[in-house]
């Protein structure tokens, strides 16, 4: 078999953890190999080794049947290996061209030949259908385009092997579709691809083979067209994973949250949410569907108090809370699972215990007469950790930073649910998580609903919206273009509405 | 054991370094001269800062190490010595250019303390006369550091000296109010240069710079101009600054200097102490009459005739036939 890359018996330890334990993978020329594994399984580490960012403790790497040592990214480049990282490595105030040529700049005399480079990039971009403006600054372009710049960076360096680390986690559904198309173009041109993703659907769509990794060890490699999503999930998590959300029929109660004619401005002072009205009843999950950047974030920030409201009302059990402080809204019964867990959710350098009580720390029993009550805080946290299965090395004392993304998310979900809120606002609650964690968090959201609480679910994942919601409101350009009953709609209808075509109710 | 027998003389320096070509250096040179003559054990300490605490600290350090004859240069030591003379009752203090007080400017000179002042106004006066005589006609200016009594007295004396020469020797030297300034610090070299440049631009021929580091800038500007062929002068202060003004071969921009014989004062006090005639409890003034102030003995830029005339004026001050005021009166600033 014509293997372009072989990584054999790779071992890599980090303090206290074996990230890769005797891992072997191989990539054939012209194929897409998917790497699948739980959060923290060691996928990124393995790829970082291949790209020369880390040196392995043991094992060998063979490229085109030659044993090689890859000590740094330059050597990887020279071997024709390129990588798009989970977090882009782009200089925000450089142009697209400057980012791409960085490190191997073409020169005219002493001077960088910017125009020559831009021309070449334009050509490459058109050839692979990437649609990138070489003169744009990184900070001015969308995340999707930034990712295409990363791809161009590899192509500019004549990479034969392209590594994608969770490329779709940050993309909108449209962008994901485009990326899949680009990958196919790349394959046609003879490139080989390694793809890391948590989304089984994507693996099914583009990958030829899939190597599953659990806790640093390879579990096995499967031929994608000979297996099912459920089987891959089982291999990865080690047990059956259910993709269907069990939801009992539950007639909704009276209205708790009513948003009326809400207008909110974005950072640039332009209206992001316009005359938006929805109402949310007890015992239901209302999903907000929409393409990223259509005002969802601003809507949620306005409801939770993170952003000022221009006009309109937010009625919670009949009281207008639109002028309340964040704290007062919290006390009135609004809880929030934020979109970005690291930015808004957790103080990363605080312990889990401190994070769990941050909002309620001045209430008894957590403080008395102005003093923190450590035993009460600790036992409360232990209970949450147990109940929500937050896994950490040192329990409640562990710093939030030391938790994997999935466990950070579980901690936040646990914290917010345990406040027993009237309204739980969950924004992208499963972003970047493995299927096991997703299953768990979905269960807890439905449980809230079944207890008669109201849940507002905002997600870019249409599947998640369709699976969980009772009703779905579709937002486009800050306007509510319609509302549908989840049971009576399908992906197609909602998708069209997300694109701004009004239908349904 | 041999060390024990020697008399220990200590010094605490003021803001500048020991080699500041000014107060500290003069004091120390006097001490070194006394060491030559009387075989002493001498030492100086430089405080970290210029606060009273820093000074007290160094005095206590000296005292603890057995230095019980301590010389301190500068008015900044006034409150320090006020405290130290009570705390260290068996120690002798010489305070140059100031007298101990509690912060209220009422001098309290302890029984083993001598407070020494210099007649800066007489020194400035003589430098003024010399300048006027040498230039014969033209314009002069004054740049002071901080507006403190010693600097002010130099200024006032200088102005009187110019006026005296104009009145008695027929010189025609102008001094313009806007060219008499106090820069406000003793270390802003750049300001010294810039101010001097403005004055020279406006036609000033000689600047009397009583301003420490600010004066360094003044001398620099003068050197630059002198090298370019302009005839500009600086009158030095405290010590003979001739060497600082050399810009080519032996040529210097320092016309003369208004000198305070600090070294003489510290030497004299040590000598008196060794002779058991230490004038404890007194406030002494070093002036022309005891050769405590004047202009340098050698002034290459003054003609012999001028030096002779200045010497005559010096004698008149000593004899009392000429008196120099140490207050502003109707003088400029």
């Amino acid at each position, binding site marked *: 078999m014509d293997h372009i890359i072989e990584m054999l018996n790779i071992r890599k330890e980090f303090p206290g953890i074996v990230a890769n334990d005797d891992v072997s993978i191989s990539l054939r020329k012209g194929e897409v190999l998917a790497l699948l594994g739980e959060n923290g399984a060691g996928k990124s580490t393995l790829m970082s080794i291949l790209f020369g960012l880390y040196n392995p403790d043991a094992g060998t790497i063979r490229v085109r049947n030659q044993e090689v040592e890859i000590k740094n990214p330059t050597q990887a480049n020279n071997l024709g290996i390129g990588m798009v990282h989970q977090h882009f490595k782009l200089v925000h105030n450089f142009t697209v061209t400057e980012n791409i040529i960085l490190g191997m700049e073409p020169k005219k005399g002493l001077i960088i030949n910017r125009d020559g480079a831009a021309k070449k990039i334009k050509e490459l971009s058109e050839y692979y259908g990437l649609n990138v403006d070489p003169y744009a600054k990184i900070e001015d372009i969308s995340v999707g385009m930034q990712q295409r710049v990363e791809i161009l960076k590899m192509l500019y360096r004549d990479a034969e092997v392209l590594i994608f680390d969770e490329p779709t986690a940050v993309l909108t559904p449209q962008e994901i579709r485009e990326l899949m198309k680009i990958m196919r173009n790349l394959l046609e041109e003879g490139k080989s691809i390694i793809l890391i993703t948590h989304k089984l659907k994507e693996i099914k769509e583009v990958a030829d083979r899939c190597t599953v990794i659990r806790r640093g060890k390879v579990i096995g490699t499967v031929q994608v067209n000979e297996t099912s999503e459920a089987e891959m999930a089982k291999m990865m998590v080690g047990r059956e994973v259910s993709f269907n959300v069990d939801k009992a029929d539950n007639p909704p109660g009276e209205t708790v949250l009513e948003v009326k004619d809400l207008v909110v401005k974005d*950072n640039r002072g332009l209206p992001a949410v316009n005359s938006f009205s929805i109402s949310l009843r007890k015992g239901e999950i209302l999903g907000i569907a929409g393409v990223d950047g259509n005002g969802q*974030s601003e809507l949620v920030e306005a409801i*939770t*108090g*993170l*952003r000022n409201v221009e006009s309109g009302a937010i009625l919670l059990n009949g009281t207008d809370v639109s002028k309340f*402080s*964040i*704290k007062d809204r*919290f006390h009135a019964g609004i809880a*929030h699972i*934020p979109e*970005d867990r690291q*930015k*808004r*959710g*957790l*103080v*990363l*350098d*605080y312990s889990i215990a*401190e994070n769990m009580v*941050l*909002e309620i*720390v*001045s209430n008894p029993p*957590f*403080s008395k007469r*102005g*003093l*923190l009550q450590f035993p009460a805080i600790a036992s409360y946290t232990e209970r949450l950790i147990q109940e929500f299965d937050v896994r950490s090395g040192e329990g409640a004392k562990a710093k939030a930073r030391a938790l994997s993304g999935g466990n950070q998310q579980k901690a936040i979900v646990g914290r917010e649910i345990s406040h027993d809120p009237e309204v739980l606002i969950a924004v992208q609650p499963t972003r970047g998580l493995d299927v096991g964690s997703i299953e768990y968090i979905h269960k807890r959201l439905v449980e809230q609903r079944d207890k008669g609480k109201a849940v507002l679910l905002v997600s870019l994942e249409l599947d998640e919206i369709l699976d969980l919601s009772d009703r779905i409101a579709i937002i486009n350009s800050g306007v509510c273009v319609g509302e549908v009953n989840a049971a009576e709609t399908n992906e197609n209808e909602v998708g069209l509405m997300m694109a701004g075509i009004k239908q349904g109710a | 054991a041999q060390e024990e027998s020697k008399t220990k003389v200590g010094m605490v320096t003021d803001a500048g370094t020991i080699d500041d070509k000014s107060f500290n250096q003069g004091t120390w040179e006097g001490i070194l001269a006394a060491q030559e003559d009387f075989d002493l054990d001498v*030492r100086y*300490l430089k*405080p*970290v*800062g*210029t*606060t*009273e*605490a*820093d000074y*007290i*600290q*160094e005095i*206590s*350090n*000296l005292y*603890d*190490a057995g*230095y019980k004859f301590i010389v301190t240069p500068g008015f900044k030591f006034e*409150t320090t010595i006020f405290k130290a003379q009570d705390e260290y009752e068996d120690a002798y203090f010489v305070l140059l250019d100031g007298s101990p007080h*509690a*912060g*209220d400017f009422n001098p309290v000179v302890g029984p083993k303390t001598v407070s020494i002042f210099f007649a800066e106004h007489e020194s400035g006066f003589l430098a003024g006369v010399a300048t006027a005589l040498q230039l014969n006609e033209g314009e002069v200016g004054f740049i002071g550091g*901080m507006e403190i009594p010693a600097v002010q007295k130099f200024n006032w004396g200088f102005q009187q000296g110019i006026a005296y020469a104009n009145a008695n020797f027929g010189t025609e030297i102008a001094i313009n109010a806007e060219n008499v300034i106090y820069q406000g610090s003793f270390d802003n070299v750049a300001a010294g240069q810039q101010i001097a440049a403005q004055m020279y631009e406006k036609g000033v021929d000689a600047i009397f710079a009583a301003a420490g580091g600010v004066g360094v800038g003044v001398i620099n500007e003068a050197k630059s101009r002198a090298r370019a062929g302009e005839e500009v002068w600086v009158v030095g202060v405290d010590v003979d600054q001739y060497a600082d003004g050399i810009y080519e071969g032996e040529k210097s921009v320092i016309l003369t200097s208004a000198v305070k014989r600090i070294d003489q004062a510290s030497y004299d006090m040590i000598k008196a102490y060794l002779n058991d005639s230490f004038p404890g409890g007194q406030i002494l003034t070093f002036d022309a009459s005891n050769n405590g102030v004047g202009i340098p003995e050698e002034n290459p830029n003054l003609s012999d005739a001028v030096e002779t005339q200045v010497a005559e004026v010096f004698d008149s001050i000593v004899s009392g036939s000429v008196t120099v005021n140490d207050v502003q009166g109707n003088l400029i600033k």
Partner: protein
Amino acid sequence: MNTIVQIFPYAVAYTIPLLITSLGGLFSERSGVVNIGLEGLMVVGSFFTALVINFLEPTMGANAIWFGLLAAMIGGALFSMLHAIASVSLHANQVISGTAINMIATAVTVFFARNLLGSGNIQIINTLSRFNVPLLSRIPIIGPLFFTNTYATTWFVLAILGAAYFVLYYTPSGLRLRSCGEHPHAADAAGINVQRTRYIGVGLSGTFAGLGGGVMIVTYSGQFNGSVAGLGFLALASLIFGQWKPLGILGATLFFGFATTMANVSQVIPSLAVIPPVLLKTFPYVATLIALIIFSRSSQAPKAVGEPFVKDKR
């Protein structure tokens, strides 16, 4: 040993203004605002202390000291609001705002001193008297070291240190203050008013640095002259050296206090005089450099210190 007993009270006296100022910096930086302006705030404190004592001394004698220190705290707090407005409300670069504070402080206080009292130097007559703590000072070894020749302000500052430790780690306010320095957006989302918290942090730094300047005047300096001789910068170094922790700061300031005092007296202490003075003089800084390098891998700096908090920014 004898040497140590001798220099101990001096070293402690030098340490205390450093300690309280550094503690002020702690509150500011823990709330997320870098405060390079400690030096200037100390100058302001020393100015107010000297000014008030100068006015009140004739009528109330040594009691004026306490009013002087109170004025230092108020003056420092008010002056620090300049820094708070610039860096918290207006999102200015905090290093520069702090540097401007330093430069303005000297210029303005000396100007006012000159206009109010005719001189840029303000001297006070009564400085604080030293006392031996009854009973405790008789304990062998410890007594002579810690309980003889002490100033009331030393105990006051140590009490503040204890209170600061307690507030930071044992009260909700402390938890919240720290969260604003670590992760203001998370704090904001948790309903904490980040801007107000930071104003309080900066205000405390002004209060404490002002007190530091005042203590310096009433204990060992006795005169205001528009400068605190780099003590504010040393306090900043202590803050970092002490890893933004109250007890760490205590250790760091004691280290600086002793190292500086040793360097000062080295020339007259025969056993130290053999060491070249340049080594002794640079010793505290060289030691800092080395300590920094050792500690730097595990730096405990508040994660968000120096970052303006702009609410709407994502």
